[in-house]
């Protein structure tokens, strides 16, 4: 995905991840708070229960003797409180405001009604926060009923310790949950966007000529996008095929009248008697040949440029390709009594390349050789396999003159010694571009007047 568009909005992936992470953070915080509140309450209730039990145990041990309220403090009542931590325990047993035993200044949490449950309160006592419970217990002293208040208080160190431990655990769990959820949100965003990536890949990997409909596994949400994409591809296909048809049609429209003119010119040429008329007619025919040849090579060159980008590789046999090209051009060579000698070893020369391009290159090289060779000569087409494949066309023509050696493959460049021959100068350019497109090169060995050897060098796999 390229990020060149000016109006590029934030990526769906980061938005998705951020949203999921935010939800995870909120959930983690809520979890933390709930755990803390519940745990604190549970710890508090536990303490309250123990305090109440302790106070009740003390109250149960009250009795009256000689008109007095007496108490034999049950040791267990205190020990059940003091086991866990370093908390300090205070108690006070008081009847009608008078302390019977314990800490006289320990405040009594008055229950609303006598006989109701234990009353709890929290206050500071001797510089420390304590939790206190008061249990009212009526004791019969003689004929009197005396309400005795038993108060037990405990510092909250243990509670604080439990609370902080629970907070620690809750924090760890919440952070852990947040991290796992964030990681999961990355994964979820990834997997949610995977079909989009697949779609991107399947479109990006196509060659420029591949205009089939896109068919990948698509989730329902992407179906409209796929539909739109395929419709667009269909439109593109139609427009491309229309322009292809147009070129074909145009070529047809131009070449058919050109063929008529040429045929008529040949017939007329036969009937003409005067040498100057015949010469004029011959020049006309040559001009027709030149223009149609140039048009053909321009189309070929355009095709090479177009196909070179598309990298359409197929397995083919270079030896067979060279043989085919020789056979195709044999009648043309025959017209000049030129023999094409094939020096091609038995056996295949497997190569992965673009058949049409390679064919075009070989055709152009051989066609050039035929054109520039004098009649009654021979052209040797040879194929060699080694570190690289070497397809060579050697002729006995006029060769390239020294000054042309710079670059006979340059577009529209023609040798300085060929003014008398019809040509556009694109033949070797095409061959050179095809060779380079296949990771090879075009080699030209030539002595002026002694013929040339043009080789297509292609890397062996």
């Amino acid at each position, binding site marked *: 995905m390229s990020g060149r568009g000016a109006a590029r909005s934030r990526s769906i992936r980061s938005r998705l991840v951020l949203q999921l992470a935010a939800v995870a953070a909120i959930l983690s915080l809520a979890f933390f708070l709930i755990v803390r509140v519940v745990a604190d309450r549970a710890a508090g209730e536990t303490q309250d229960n123990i305090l109440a039990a302790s106070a009740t145990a003390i109250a149960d041990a009250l009795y009256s003797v000689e008109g007095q309220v007496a108490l034999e403090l049950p040791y267990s009542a205190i020990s059940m409180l003091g086991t866990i931590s370093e908390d300090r325990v205070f108690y006070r047993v008081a009847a009608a405001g008078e302390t019977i035993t314990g800490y006289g200044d320990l405040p009594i949490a008055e229950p609303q009604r006598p006989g109701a449950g234990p009353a709890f309160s929290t206050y500071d006592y001797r510089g420390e926060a304590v939790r206190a419970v008061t249990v009212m217990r009526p004791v019969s002293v003689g004929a009197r009923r005396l309400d005795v208040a038993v108060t037990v208080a405990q510092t909250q160190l243990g509670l604080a310790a439990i609370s902080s431990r629970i907070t620690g655990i809750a924090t760890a769990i919440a952070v852990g949950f947040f991290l796992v959820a964030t990681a999961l949100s990355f994964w979820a965003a990834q997997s949610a966007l995977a079909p989009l990536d697949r779609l991107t890949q399947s479109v990006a990997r196509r060659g420029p000529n591949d205009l089939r409909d896109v068919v990948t596994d698509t989730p329902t949400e992407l179906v409209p996008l796929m539909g739109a994409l395929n419709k667009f591809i269909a439109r593109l296909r139609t427009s491309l095929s229309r322009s292809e048809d147009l070129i*074909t049609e145009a*070529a*047809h429209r*131009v*070449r*058919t*009248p*050109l*063929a*008529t*003119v*040429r*045929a*008529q010119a*040949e*017939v007329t*040429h*036969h009937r003409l008697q005067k040498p100057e008329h*015949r010469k004029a007619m*011959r020049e006309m*025919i*040559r001009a*027709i*040949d030149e223009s*149609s040849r140039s*048009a*053909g*090579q321009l*189309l*070929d060159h355009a*095709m090479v440029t177009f196909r070179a980008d598309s990298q359409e590789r197929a397995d083919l046999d270079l030896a067979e390709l060279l043989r085919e090209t020789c056979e*195709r051009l*044999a*009648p*043309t060579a*025959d*017209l*000049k*009594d030129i023999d094409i000698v094939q020096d091609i070893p038995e056996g295949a020369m497997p190569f992965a390349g673009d*058949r*049409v391009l390679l*064919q*075009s290159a070989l*055709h152009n090289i051989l066609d050039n050789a035929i054109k520039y060779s004098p*009649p*009654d000569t021979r052209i040797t087409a040879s194929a060699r396999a080694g570190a690289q494949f070497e397809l060579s066309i050697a002729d006995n023509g006029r060769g390239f003159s020294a000054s042309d050696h710079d670059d006979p493959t340059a577009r529209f460049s023609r040798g300085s010694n060929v003014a*008398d*021959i*019809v040509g556009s100068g694109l033949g070797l350019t095409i061959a050179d571009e095809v060779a380079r497109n296949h990771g090879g090169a075009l080699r030209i060995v030539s002595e002026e007047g002694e013929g040339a050897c043009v080789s297509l060098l292609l890397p062996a796999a």
Partner: protein
Amino acid sequence: MRFLLVEDSETLARAIVDRLALDGHAVDHAGTLDAAQASISVADYDLILLDIMLPDGDGRSFLAQHRKARKRTPVIVLTARSEVSDRVGLLDLGADDYITKPFDFSELQARCRAVLRRQGGSAANQTSFGDAVLDSTAGTLTTARGTEDLRNRELRLLEVFFGAPGQIFSKTHLMDRLFSFSDDVSENAIEVYVGRIRKKLGASNVRIETVRGLGYRLASRA
């Protein structure tokens, strides 16, 4: 030889018919695929020249049908496309060869000859004069000495003479038949080729006579 030309452009068809007639070929012309089908059902042709774009369909479908019906008549496609782009498809469909418009008639003839030769040639393409027999398809000349292969230009020159024994052909006329328009050759070049075929006819009772100031003709040895 007898050709069937399937081509929708009337003017091009007429020009091709005229041009092939100069070489002594009989050409029937069909402007549509239907007309072409009608022609091949009533007459035998040595070769079919087929245009691809026709008013009532694609020449390729004709080609496919022609091959499906196992007709052996060779087909050369006249295409308006570029050199190579169409080639694979055409040859796969069963065309024997193709030629790009506009074309050189000597090249067309060379291709026709090559196609007929590949097909195994028919005896109908033999012409004889005296005790010499010229086989155009095989490209051979048979005399008392035996059968000899001919170079392309020798063959074409002999075809001219064997086509009209006794007729005088000017050097200019022979040059037209032998050299393409892009070849710049002097009239003397023709003497080289006449010399060669004289050598090949040496063992027969046939010879090429020089008619001073007019040209050459084929005659029996007195």
